[in-house]
């Protein structure tokens, strides 16, 4: 089974990444446009205040709060909550784009180029940012949750917890970028050795 080159594992993954990138960009567009449309432009078709049960999923648990104890959310709050996911989606789409470019070089069997070192470094930075953004988002959603639940029997506290494993992964990518930089230099030396 060929790992790099044409018709290889790398070319299949590149195809999947290309598809994911287009899907990601499309979803991001739909998310932003739909949430702004619902929040600002649907005067009659969507009620200003939405009453519903609140479902929270975390760590393999699904907790549902009845609409009787949940504050109805306004359209604007709904819009901002959905829009707050956008930065995370942007980072994920950027990571996929960088990976796609790297796999392109693997299909061409020429991975040790300076550009790949830059891409790996970018991936590392984006992965670290993803962890930070996700933590901020969770804190924001948690804060809204605390305000939305109007029951004296339910206590919800927000915590700021950074996913150190993801941050560590980001740092590993940055180190790997330096390895590729050295590899690119060595390849250049080899190419220019007559």
């Amino acid at each position: 089974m060929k790992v790099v080159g044409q018709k290889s594992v790398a070319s299949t993954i590149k195809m999947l990444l290309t598809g994911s990138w287009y899907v990601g960009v499309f979803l991001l567009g739909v998310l932003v446009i739909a949430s702004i449309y619902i929040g600002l432009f649907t005067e009659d078709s969507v009620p200003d205040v939405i009453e519903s049960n609140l479902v929270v999923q975390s760590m393999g648990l699904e907790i549902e709060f009845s609409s009787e104890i949940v504050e109805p959310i306004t359209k604007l709050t709904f819009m901002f909550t959905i829009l707050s996911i956008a930065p995370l989606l942007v980072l994920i789409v950027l990571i996929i784009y960088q990976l796609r470019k790297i796999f392109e070089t693997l299909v061409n069997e020429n991975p040790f180029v300076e550009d790949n070192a830059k891409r790996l470094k970018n991936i590392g930075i984006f992965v670290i940012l993803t962890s930070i953004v996700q933590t901020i988002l969770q804190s924001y959603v948690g804060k809204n949750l605390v305000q939305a639940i109007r029951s004296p029997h339910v206590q919800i506290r927000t915590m700021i917890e950074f996913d150190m494993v993801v941050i560590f992964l980001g740092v590993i990518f940055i180190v790997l970028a330096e390895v590729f930089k050295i590899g690119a230099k060595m390849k250049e030396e080899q190419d220019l050795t007559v």
Partner: protein
Amino acid sequence: MRIKVKLDEMLVKKGISLTELSEEVGITIANLSILKNNKAKAIRFTTLEAICEALDCQPGDLLEHINN
């Protein structure tokens, strides 16, 4: 400090074209061009030997050290 490759001068002196030299030494024109245009980072002894034989010259005829 740099090493200048005087391949151009030697080709003119011996009346040989780059293409002919490429065929004789078995090195591609692309690689010889890298050498000729002083873009090479290193040269193998086998390459130097092959060029010197083809041009009937010494390594010193091909390479010149220039102080900046």
